[in-house]
């Protein structure tokens, strides 16, 4: 059971990683011409959360992401084919080609699209949660968290004691400007000052699961440190020596994980190949 939990996370993360590698290659080969925000390196966050929330707690939450959201979409069960079509500009894309990479959505998994202005998903997610009273997950980056309207929305969510989970995917970068240059405060401290539970942790699933007991009982903010493997936008790498959670977990889980990854890689590569042939 315990092992299954980690393998389920790995399975989702593996899908995200192999998917993003294909996107990376498609950009490099000029098969994708729109701005793309790759989530590779950060996939363990949504993979772990989706496993806890959907598989374990059996909850289908409202999901409010922003750009760099392919892994959120895939981890929570978004349609792979539709996302490939969306990125390649083919008919039948998940957002009818209106969303591209940053503004994708899925009615099937209650994932709401993003308008492209950083952090707007936070007040919008808070309003949706307030009105529907449904469990809600709002994702943001460490840069979006600095938006003034994000802070106002956090305060209101706390006042109204909403069943909402705020996830800060903290890769320490706003394009290439580091957090320490932009601010001298931390989001988990901000959350606490708004009288909600706020924690800082890394993207190790063992750490994320510790906070499951708080999910959707009251507003909670998790500032999760992670690493973005590729450039802010497009296909390129800033630092190849960055710690890679996915590879680390793969090593820890051993041969079974290695084999699972190979199987998923083959499936995802075939899927991409099939759609690329239509171009």
């Amino acid at each position, binding site marked *: 059971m315990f092992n299954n939990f980690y393998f389920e996370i790995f399975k989702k993360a593996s899908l995200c990683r192999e998917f993003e590698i294909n996107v990376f290659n498609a950009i490099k080969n000029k098969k994708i011409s729109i701005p793309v925000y790759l989530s590779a390196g950060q996939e363990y966050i949504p993979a772990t959360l989706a496993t806890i929330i959907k598989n374990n707690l059996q909850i289908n939450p409202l999901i409010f992401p922003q750009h760099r959201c392919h892994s959120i979409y895939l981890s929570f069960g978004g349609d792979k084919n539709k996302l490939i079509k969306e990125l390649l500009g083919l008919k039948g894309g998940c*957002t*009818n080609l*209106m*969303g591209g990479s940053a*503004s994708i*959505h899925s*009615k099937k998994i209650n994932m*709401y*699209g993003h*308008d*492209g*202005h950083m952090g*707007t998903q*936070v*007040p*919008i*997610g*808070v*309003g*949706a*949660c*307030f*009105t*529907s009273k449904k469990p809600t997950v709002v994702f943001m980056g460490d840069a979006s968290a600095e938006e*003034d*309207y*994000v*802070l*106002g*929305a956090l*305060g*209101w969510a706390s*006042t109204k004691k909403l069943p909402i989970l705020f996830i800060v995917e903290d890769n320490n970068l706003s394009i290439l400007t580091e957090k320490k240059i932009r601010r001298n405060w931390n989001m988990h401290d901000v959350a606490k000052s708004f009288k909600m539970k706020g924690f800082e942790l890394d993207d190790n699933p063992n750490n994320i699961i510790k906070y499951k007991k708080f999910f959707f009982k009251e507003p909670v903010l998790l500032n999760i440190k992670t690493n973005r493997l590729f450039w802010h936008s497009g296909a390129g790498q800033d630092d190849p020596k960055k710690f890679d959670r996915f590879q680390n977990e793969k090593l820890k889980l051993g041969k079974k994980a290695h084999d699972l990854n190979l199987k998923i890689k083959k499936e995802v590569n075939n899927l991409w190949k099939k759609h690329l042939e239509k171009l």
Partner: protein
Amino acid sequence: MEKTLRETIKHIIKNHLLSKKGKVFGQCLTAVGWVGGTLPEMYEKDGMIELSMADVAGGGIVTGSALMNERPIYVIRYQGFNWYNCPMIVNYAAKSKEIWERPCPVFVRGIGMEGGIGPVAGSSHHSLYFRMPGIKIVSPMTPKEYVKIYNSYMRENDVYYVSEHRGSFDNKKELQNDTRGKKDLIIIAISITRFAAVEAKKILERKGCKIGIIHVLWIKPLKISNRDYAAIKLSKKGGILLDDDYTDGIANALAHNISLKTNKKIETMGLKNKTAGAHKKVDNLPPSANEIVNKILRILSKKN
């Protein structure tokens, strides 16, 4: 007995909360004046939701509520606050149906007012919304118009910006267009300027001028009947479009479009191109009846 516009709005809001189980959002709603007496004395348990003073976030929270199909009414007590309240309404709510096929209908009540209230709060700011696709802009000044607009909003799935004006809240009368016969000039009036336009028309007619009037309820999409367009075309000197916002916005844009459609010159009058101060000596008010009269007389006296 006829109801005032104020009482009509209050009745609609009460019905929205009680019968339709909707929500009304805004800042300081449950204050002494209940937004010029247009809100029933109801509270959060009834759906009257006090937002925090975080202006931009407030618009986002209302947008999120609209995504859940609650058809919220968002009260913006002074239209000038829209500069901080409207970003997520125009960038998300207005686009949601087109991008994600998820309707996000919001009824935004923007309330205009002017006269000694300074540079921020005064006048109408509906031009802010005008350039964005996916939004409807209306400016009801009479009870029947307001009911019509609310019913239309409840039937559709769109974002409505309802440009109100406190100066109209005591009004009980319906305002009628007059485009019969060949006119010297036709006044096309928006928002609170409609009342000054009616006055100006009377003054000018006493002077022997033949003046028509078109009351604009629907600003976007602009709704002017073919008969009224024909009357502009037939008129001697075209028209003048009046607005309670700066002319470099809706007024000039609509005048241009009407001009293209009728081949007639359409002048504009609105707020002067200056910042309003707090004192009445340095205020910036919409055109008064006398100012409209003087401008029209100048137009009529021109040879071409």
